[in-house]
């Protein structure tokens, strides 16, 4: 489409057309530090919300044959764990919150639950990944053992290395979410979170907290996630 203009008319039409682009100026808010923090926080929250709509409890993470396993000695782990924490020889998992049977649960209590072994992909937020073997009890089985109120929103754990993590109940009930006490058929090594860790194939690597000491079922979180509270996604679905 084209037409004749004189200069005045052209300037008038051009001005009107340029004004239509003015909403773009709103992006300038991203250059203002307090607004930037808020907007990026909203962006992450929206991404997490969209992921939660996508999550299906029945959708299983892919599993792999033993031939696809990354050797245990090439299982990288986060620099946070270079100082391996002291573990109490009388270790037990301290359970509290919205549960009918709070108290201390020993490793044997957990081992008595059905043992699940699975080769799943562990994906790090940094971009690397590996296929590893994890074995342990289903978190959902443990939640029924302790009489957890599964209508609560979160399962929250604290760790011997001052790490902490939370998991939305939907992911906690996922059949592949494990309370893991073995990797590659052997009890957990110190570097991998002995004596008990989470292995969560539907979540990014940092959600799989190690060195668990306490577990709480709750609707309210005072802290959400060690890395999540520093700016990473707390929901961290993959």
């Amino acid at each position, binding site marked *: 489409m084209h037409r004749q203009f004189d200069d*005045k008319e052209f300037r008038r039409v051009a001005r009107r057309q*340029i004004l239509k682009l003015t909403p773009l100026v709103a992006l300038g808010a991203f250059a203002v530090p307090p607004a930037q923090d808020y907007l990026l926080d909203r962006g992450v929250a929206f*991404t997490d919300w969209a992921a939660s709509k996508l999550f299906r409890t029945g*959708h299983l993470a892919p599993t792999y044959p033993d031939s696809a396993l990354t050797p245990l000695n090439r299982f990288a782990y986060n620099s946070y764990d270079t100082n391996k924490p002291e573990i109490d020889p009388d270790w037990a998992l301290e359970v509290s919150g919205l549960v009918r049977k709070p108290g201390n649960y020993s490793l044997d209590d957990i081992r008595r639950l059905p043992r699940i072994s699975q080769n799943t992909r562990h994906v790090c937020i940094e*971009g690397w*990944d590996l296929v590893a073997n994890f074995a342990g009890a289903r978190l959902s089985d443990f939640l029924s053992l302790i009489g957890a109120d599964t209508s609560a929103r979160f399962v929250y754990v604290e760790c011997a290395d001052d790490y902490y993590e939370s998991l939305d109940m939907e992911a906690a009930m996922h059949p592949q979410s494990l309370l893991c006490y073995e990797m590659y058929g052997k009890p957990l090594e110190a570097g991998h979170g002995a004596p008990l860790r989470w292995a969560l194939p539907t979540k990014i690597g940092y959600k799989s907290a190690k060195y668990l000491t306490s577990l709480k079922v709750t609707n309210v979180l005072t802290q959400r996630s060690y890395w999540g509270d520093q*700016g990473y996604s707390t929901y961290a679905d993959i």
Partner: protein
Amino acid sequence: MIADGQDRAKGTPESAPSGAQSETRDTEASSAGDVLSSELAVRPPAPAGQATSGDDLAPVADGLMLGTATPEVEAPAPTVHESETAGAKGQGTFVAAYEHSAVVRFCHWLNAIALVIMITSGWRIFIAFPSFGPRIPEHQLLKIPDAITLGGWLGGALQWHYTFMWVFTATGLVYVGYLIASGDYRIMLFRPRDIPGVWPMARHYLFFGPEPKQTEAYNPLQKLAYTTIVLCGALSVLTGAVILRPVQFSGLAWVMGGFHLARVWHFVAMCGFVAFIPGHLVMVALHGWNNFMSMVRGWKKNPEYL
């Protein structure tokens, strides 16, 4: 405006030089008949001119758009004001073409901003693991200087990436959807018949070969670039979805050859953008301010193809 139409209707070798300065060429070229026929050549005749102009022009367009009403028909109603301004300032008239609708321009600029943010924050994310394949043994394939990245650290870069991936995807979808709905995709979609024209155009730009005759709004090389870059956008979004959610999109991950290869394809899409942007900017610079401004105000003065 209407007075101008009369001038042209008279056939204006005399009147044009007096009125037009820089726009002389177009004023001369544009007898009403010429403009009318080239209008028809550029676009099929619309049942109603207003339908193609959309809402952008509605208030000003009535009776002014060539092809919907002839100047002669409107002649009885010239206003004193209009003929005075045209005459008193000694300004001539010129032809301008409406090249980019507001939707396209808005999406273009918003997408461009989002793209720069996605690339620079993506580089920062890549720094966290600058390799493909296993984490151990460690390889650093590429060192990207921190200074050209966005976000400061991995978590910060991810926040930018998570936020602007929606902007990038949404503007891309609206843009492509608009092109399809309006039929405008036809002028920029690269098709097999464009293949023979690619090399002559590249030879012209890169090796100063003869300039091929421009027969369409976009030359074959432009069509190739614009079509490829839209495909790069689609590739980056789909591979990004797999990298972000390899479990939820496990089927798509399998199609791409797994998580590792999805990262590789995502990187390839980024390389496509990084190759496109300087070329695009150089071409825009070479074609001047008026051409650039058509992506801002929609209208291009004295388009070369009219």
